[in-house]
């Protein structure tokens, strides 16, 4: 079924009786060409591009819970490509370009809103780093704009320019950055993949891999064994747990990142704003809630919830730059599990086990990568070679000493 304004109108006249399920609820077949583990954003977009772009036909996505239940369903919805290092920037810019045509491509309004992202800076040396970044972005074909304090005073008069502990000296804009209705991304990809014939099998937890002589031939699930010529793990947040079933240790730790939303408010913020001297970033959803977050709780966790010190730290950061939110109320807080990698950058790679592929380590930046991650993973699965923008996202890079460390924090995952 093709969605359109006309269709909405027609269905309205007919009492909305004609809408059909957005996806099927198939039983698993005994064998697939590609089995994708994890119906999160990345898994679903992988399935979508695998079938749409790379012509692979017989594909299943296995999901432990409900589709979209991973971090695609619990993030702060920001898209951007304001990276600095070659191994990242081309990839994220590719992703941003895919976002730009996505809704028309998969016929679903994911409310992709390029309302800009602004990183504030508060010192000369921080400005220098942002200039370096802005230039890297432009060299990679992305957009970047440096704003000085005066411009920001005009554009964002509610920021604290008067009494700030760390004065706002300017900011780096990426006007093409913005936000997306995150659940709709999962649903759009799921619906698109389903229409391309992909079996999305929910409530089908994988309990083991079928590995013979170093070759992966399928998976065991709670719904029985399923054969697969290629098995593609795509379970960021649970990567450690799943890959342990294949006997692999990863350069990844699982950490909890909390996110927050306020009560609904009339339009308050134009775009995404991040604080440079503390941990706070914020945007406003179309429903009116301020969606915000900050730093990781800092300790390894699979608990999908955090603790008070970070809640308070985030609120302090918010009040430090925009004290007009003092009377807005926090409505809900929740936690997601992040695959924190050893240099803050992800992996899209084959493994030492033939037929077993790995996609993970997205830290807290996985959402914006959803289209490119799926596209590049599909490329790797279909052609057995990395997509040109994802050549650096290899598992062996630490052994070789090729680090993609945007923050310069080294091999301590909770600092990225």
């Amino acid at each position, binding site marked *: 079924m093709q969605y359109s304004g006309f269709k909405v109108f027609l269905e309205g006249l007919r009492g909305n009786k004609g809408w059909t399920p957005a996806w099927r609820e198939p039983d698993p077949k005994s064998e697939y060409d590609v089995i994708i583990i994890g119906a999160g954003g990345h898994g679903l977009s992988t399935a979508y591009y695998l079938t749409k772009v790379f012509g692979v036909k017989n594909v299943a996505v296995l999901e432990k819970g409900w589709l979209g239940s991973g971090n695609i369903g619990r993030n702060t919805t920001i898209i951007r490509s304001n990276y600095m290092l070659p191994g990242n920037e081309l990839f994220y810019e590719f992703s941003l370009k895919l976002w730009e045509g996505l809704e028309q491509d998969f016929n679903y309004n994911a409310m992709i809103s390029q309302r800009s992202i602004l990183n504030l800076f508060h010192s000369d040396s921080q400005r220098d780093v942002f200039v370096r970044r802005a230039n890297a972005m432009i060299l990679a074909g992305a957009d970047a704009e440096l704003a000085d304090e005066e411009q920001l005073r005009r554009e964002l008069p509610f920021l604290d320019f008067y009494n700030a502990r760390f004065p706002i000296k300017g900011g780096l804009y990426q006007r093409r950055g913005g936000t997306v209705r995150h659940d709709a991304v999962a649903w759009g990809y799921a619906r698109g993949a389903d229409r391309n014939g992909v079996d999305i099998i929910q409530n089908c937890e994988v309990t083991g891999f079928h590995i013979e002589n170093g070759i992966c031939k399928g998976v065991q699930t709670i719904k029985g064994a399923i054969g697969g010529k290629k098995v593609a793990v795509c379970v960021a947040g*649970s990567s*450690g*747990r799943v890959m*342990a079933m294949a006997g692999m*240790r*990863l*350069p*990844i*730790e*699982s950490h909890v990142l909390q996110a927050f939303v306020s009560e609904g408010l009339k339009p308050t913020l134009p775009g995404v704003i991040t604080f440079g001297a503390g941990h706070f970033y914020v945007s406003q959803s179309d429903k009116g809630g301020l969606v915000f977050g900050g730093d990781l709780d*800092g*300790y*390894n*966790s*699979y*608990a999908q919830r955090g*603790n008070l*010190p970070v809640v308070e730290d985030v609120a302090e950061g918010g009040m430090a730059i925009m004290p007009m939110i003092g009377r807005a109320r926090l409505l809900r807080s929740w936690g997601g599990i992040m695959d924190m990698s*050893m240099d803050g950058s992800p992996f899209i790679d084959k493994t030492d086990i033939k037929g077993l592929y790995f996609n993970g380590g997205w830290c807290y930046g996985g959402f914006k990568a959803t289209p490119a991650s799926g596209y590049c993973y599909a490329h790797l699965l279909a052609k057995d070679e990395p997509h040109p923008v994802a050549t650096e996202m290899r598992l062996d890079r*630490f*052994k070789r000493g090729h680090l993609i460390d945007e923050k310069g924090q080294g*091999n*301590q*995952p*909770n600092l990225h």
Partner: protein
Amino acid sequence: MIINHPLLGPRDASEFVYLGDESLINRPDPNSEDADDRFYEYGYLRDNPAGDLRELWYHEQGDRSWLVVTRNTLTHEITSVEMARDVAKAKGRDK
């Protein structure tokens, strides 16, 4: 969270700084033949268990001791807290 410090009693976790897996105590012998591989594994690969994890916390806003805390990563329940120095000695690192 509250960490029950072996010497100081229960303290709020916000007084502490987190590092990671206790295995970081096991710095490899730089003179071993496979030192490159061992340092790579030491520096980069983690068990990352969903369950009990022995992990390092530093009591920065306290007595400056490093602790080995056994904590469940699914429930956050803490079942034991030891002085990391004692753990390191028990591993023979003072030799």
